[in-house]
């Protein structure tokens, strides 16, 4: 929704004669770590782009947000060009799908700009519109948000706390994470994935000891006890081998290891996880996660398992990969996304300071899983694709 002004001047040719007005913006309700009731808002542009077949049509021009059925989420309304004292009122055109919890009916939005929405039903070919009214509940609409409500899909996970043989070099060969550590990690992961209507559930825990044999030449010396990758030669062969080690079928297998050693890096690299898609024909799938990785990394790799950033069985560039300058999360739109390419915990050296905070605090990466499917973005539309894969069957 936008107000469009077109002005005419009768006596002269006019070169500039219109102004589109968008006085508000929807944003994540909080800053800091992921919270399940504070989803990222997909506010990439105003257009609604290509829509999955089940989402119906919309006339909304604005942002999208996801809600799991039964959940209440918070979204912040930011005043871009409008007086702080002018009240806003929020309505849902289909409260049987999405209900406005706060502000209460007839009350204006509070000074903090927070609105709360509850997901009621997940239906095919229909969607609700959240409207922002100026001045009264019946006032003119100055902004719109399109929430999508999703039934919860539970994805079962088998967690492996792995010991790798051959650690005679002082590097611990077993993951340092405890069961409690891993449970806490999945709590954050599920906060990130909740707006997509997806929850990862630890159904089984194993503590295996393996010897990786696929690249014996690579696992000598200090590399023993690590998962070794070699970017110059079938880089993920040991990850693939690990995925085949006693996996639990019909679950996503996550192998926690002490370290992933990048042989092409003289210092052993700092690869923060590997995830492979569950789609048929790709082979063993799952996640290898080293002790240096965090919850954002785990959520990211689980995205790969649900086929994000993969097309047709082969790996394609991540959202922000650049053929000539790979490995930089170069712009603020891609820095916000969970499915990024290069995955530093801190910002790149030399980047402008404003890049350091994309809504999660200084130096923290974003967690946006995209609802919009832009024609000029090969790897977005992530929520629809992830849900399609999570719905199964899981091989």
């Amino acid at each position, binding site marked *: *929704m*936008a*107000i*469009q*002004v*077109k*002005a*005419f*001047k*009768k006596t*002269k*040719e*006019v*070169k*500039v*004669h*219109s*102004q*589109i*007005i*968008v*006085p508000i*913006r929807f944003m994540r309700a909080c800053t800091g770590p992921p919270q399940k009731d504070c989803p990222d808002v997909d*506010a*990439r*542009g*105003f*257009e609604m*782009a290509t829509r999955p077949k089940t989402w119906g049509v919309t006339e909304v021009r604005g942002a999208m947000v996801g809600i799991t059925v039964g959940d209440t989420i918070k979204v912040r309304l930011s005043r*871009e*060009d*409008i*007086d702080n*004292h*002018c*009240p806003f009122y929020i309505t849902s055109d289909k409260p049987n799908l999405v209900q406005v919890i706060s502000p209460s009916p007839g009350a204006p939005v509070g000074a903090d700009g927070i609105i709360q929405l509850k997901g009621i039903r997940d239906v095919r070919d229909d969607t609700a519109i959240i409207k922002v009214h*100026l*001045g009264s509940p019946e*006032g*003119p*609409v*100055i902004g719109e948000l399109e929430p999508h409500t999703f039934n919860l899909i539970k994805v079962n996970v088998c967690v492996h706390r792995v010991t790798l043989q051959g650690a005679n070099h002082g590097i611990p060969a077993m993951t340092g994470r405890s069961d409690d550590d891993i449970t806490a990690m999945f709590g954050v992961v599920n906060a990130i994935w909740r707006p997509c209507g997806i929850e990862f559930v630890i159904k089984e825990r194993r503590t295996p000891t393996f010897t990786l044999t696929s690249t014996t030449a690579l696992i000598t010396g200090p590399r023993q006890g690590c998962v070794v990758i070699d970017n110059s030669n079938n880089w993920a062969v040991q990850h693939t081998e690990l995925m085949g080690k006693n996996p639990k079928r019909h679950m996503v297998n996550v192998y926690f290891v002490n370290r992933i050693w990048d042989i092409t890096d003289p210092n052993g690299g700092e690869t923060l996880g590997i995830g492979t898609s569950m789609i048929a024909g790709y082979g063993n799938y799952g996640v290898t996660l080293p002790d240096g990785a965090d919850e954002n990394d785990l959520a990211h790799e689980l995205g790969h398992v649900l086929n994000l950033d993969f097309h047709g069985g082969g790996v394609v560039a991540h959202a922000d990969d650049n053929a000539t300058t790979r490995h930089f999360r*170069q*712009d*603020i*739109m891609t820095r916000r996304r969970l499915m990024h390419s290069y995955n530093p915990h801190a910002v790149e050296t030399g980047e*402008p300071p*404003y*890049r350091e905070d994309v809504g999660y605090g200084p130096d923290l990466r974003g967690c946006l899983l995209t609802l*919009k499917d*832009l*024609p*000029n*973005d090969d790897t977005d539309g992530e929520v629809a694709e992830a849900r399609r894969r999570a719905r199964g069957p899981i091989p």
Partner: protein
Amino acid sequence: MTTPEKETGEDGRIEIHIQGEQATLQLLWEGRAVAEYIVTISNADLEPETALLGQQQRLRILGYQLGHMGNDQNGVDGNKRWETERAILDFQADHGLTINCINGEADQPTQARLKTEVGW
């Protein structure tokens, strides 16, 4: 100059006839102005679309938010900041362009499309 109060139609559009070079659009609530926008009615050129200031002028006309810096407190001042980068990225997303704005730089196709969309 004062123009009559008007309401948008269902398509959100208002058309007005004015005299002079510039008008101020006000959103009114209970008779008070709660938002103001400068609507430029001008034969004068915008800054070139190749210049950051010209890009900001066009983005603003098209409704993209640029923050509140600058003399008019609308982010149109020729200086790089994250709001301009966000606006260019949003514009690229909306118009099927390669989403590649880095450090607030708009590439040539983006510059050309900005000019096309504004008509000048």
